[in-house]
């Protein structure tokens, strides 16, 4: 941007100023000479007077006063012009300074913009690299898990064959065989979970959404985790008239089972795990409460991350840190949210934790389309 281009009042050109300075002297002198010549001609040549006082008076009147007035006027104009020129120069100077400053700032800004763009590019590249790494990691984990399935099937099969004739084994071999079978089962579960997670991460999870009656599903999941007997290890309380949720039945059961397995793993068996379902705010809310050791507040934001285990140092619990991660991904995929509260009880040795998740309610049919089909 140039400020001088906006400056409409140009100073007069220097040649005009010079002419005016010259005229300031030339014009009065010329007028004086003309007045003297005229007066001399008039008095001496025409009227034949000798140099008389009236000649001097008139010469002084026309030859001095007029030119002096003109000289003063022109001097004043010249001063004005000079002042104007000086102001213009100063203005131009200021303009130049301003322009210099602006171009300097613009240059700085351009450098900063370039640096920002470059930093942005670096960030985008780093981001892409991270995404690539994450993809690679997922693919690697998925590949390894796939590869592990075949040998694991064989190991499990071999153990099943040995277990069938375990009675013939010495007692010292029976317990290790039991442990082998148990651990192989854990490993199978882990691999299936890893493959589920990698399917979700790769966006290959397909949902089969429909209405899901919550109570039968919760009862089935509880019985599957803790055994069929109610009251001792688990309690279920479902709000009367709870409408069906809108979810994928199989995946919803997987979510509930993950929460229940967590409770079963960490909570003492003398307190039943309390499962409940209520409706509020247009959502169905399922809650799982236990009397376990609880979850430190600083871990609340972390436990839904992959491979995060509650209390890393605790080696007795056999979780792999995938259950809650999977549960969170599945709940979100079904349009709900998941969370945790802890502590929930005043007991210091069993502060417990409350896991909850929400699900949308299955849309109801528009009224009047189908008639009421009350049980006859």
């Amino acid at each position: 941007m140039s400020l001088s281009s906006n400056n409409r009042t140009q100073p007069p050109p220097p040649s005009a100023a010079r002419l005016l300075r010259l005229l300031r002297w030339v014009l009065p002198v010329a007028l004086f000479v003309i007045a003297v010549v005229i007066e001399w001609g008039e008095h001496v040549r025409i009227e034949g007077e000798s140099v008389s006082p009236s000649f001097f008076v008139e010469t002084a009147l026309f030859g001095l006063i007029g030119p002096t007035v003109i000289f003063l006027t022109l001097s004043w104009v010249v001063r004005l012009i000079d002042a104007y020129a000086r102001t213009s120069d100063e203005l131009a100077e200021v303009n130049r300074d301003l322009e210099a400053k602006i171009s300097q700032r613009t240059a700085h800004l351009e450098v900063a913009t370039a640096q920002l763009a470059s930093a942005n590019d670096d960030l985008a590249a780093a981001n892409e690299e991270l995404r690539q790494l994450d993809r690679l990691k997922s693919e690697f984990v998925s590949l390894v898990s796939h590869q592990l399935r075949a040998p694991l099937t064989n190991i499990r099969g071999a153990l099943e064959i040995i277990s069938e004739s375990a009675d013939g084994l010495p007692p010292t071999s029976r317990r290790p065989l039991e442990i082998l079978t148990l651990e192989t089962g854990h490993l199978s579960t882990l691999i299936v979970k890893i493959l589920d997670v990698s399917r979700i991460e790769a966006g290959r999870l397909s949902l089969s959404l429909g209405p899901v009656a919550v109570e039968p599903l919760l009862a089935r999941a509880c019985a599957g985790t803790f055994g069929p007997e109610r009251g001792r290890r688990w309690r279920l309380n479902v709000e009367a008239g709870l409408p069906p949720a809108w979810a994928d039945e199989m995946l919803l059961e997987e979510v509930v089972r993950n929460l229940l397995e967590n409770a079963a793993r960490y909570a003492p068996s003398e307190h039943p795990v309390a499962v409940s379902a209520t409706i509020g705010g247009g959502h169905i809310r399922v809650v799982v409460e236990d009397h376990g050791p609880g979850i430190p507040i600083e871990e609340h934001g972390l436990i839904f991350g992959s491979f995060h285990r509650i209390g890393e140092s605790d080696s007795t619990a056999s979780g792999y840190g995938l259950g809650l991660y999977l549960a969170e991904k599945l709940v979100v995929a079904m349009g709900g949210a998941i969370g945790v509260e802890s502590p929930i009880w005043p007991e210091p040795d069993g502060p417990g934790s409350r896991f909850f998740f929400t699900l949308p309610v299955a849309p109801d049919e528009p009224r009047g389309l189908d008639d009421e089909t009350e049980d006859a």
Partner: protein
Amino acid sequence: MARLLVIDDDRSLVELLSDYLTRAGHEVTGAPDGQRGLAAAAETRPELIILDVTMPGLDGWQTLARLRAGDTVPVIMLTARGDEAEILRGFAAGADDYVTKPFSFAQLAARIGAVVERTSSGRQAPEVLRGSDLEVDTVRHRVLRAGVPIELTPTEFSILVTLMREAGRVLSARQIVTEVWGSEYMEETGYIRRYVWHLRQKLEVDPRQPRYVLNERGIGYLFPAAE
């Protein structure tokens, strides 16, 4: 019990499975790839084939296609992935059941027993319910309307099967609930209306003019009997 053929390139698995299934009373032959599996199938005329999907050369799908070209022998696929797409593809290609690795031998043995029993008693006819242009395969959990697959949730599927098994009879909401969820939920009839509405959205050509799941005012629902 039954003559079985195991086709898998994992020799250890073939060996272990043969051992396990022989102990369970079956007569087992093994084959290490699709080509030799087809030859063994022609030679031993097995009553059931256990077929691995991932094999070098002729893979499980190609082997299944060739088996299906000339035979209706039941096939249980050993899939490497738990993908629904792969499982659906397996059923569409004519597999009778599938087991996903890692599986337990006891689980596979139970599936073998079920498939053998189904195919020997019902003679190749797994329970398929038909009504109008609707075809419901209760074993493979597959619904076709005029040949086009329709995806239902397991409970929607159960409701449909319950109605189709009693085609022409009106079932009360209480009867449907008892059949689908068990007698302890007998009073929870509030579910049904919503389930039926969603079932119609997926099943019917025009959900407002239902043809398959009809309403009998004040009594219940019925699937119309074939004319």
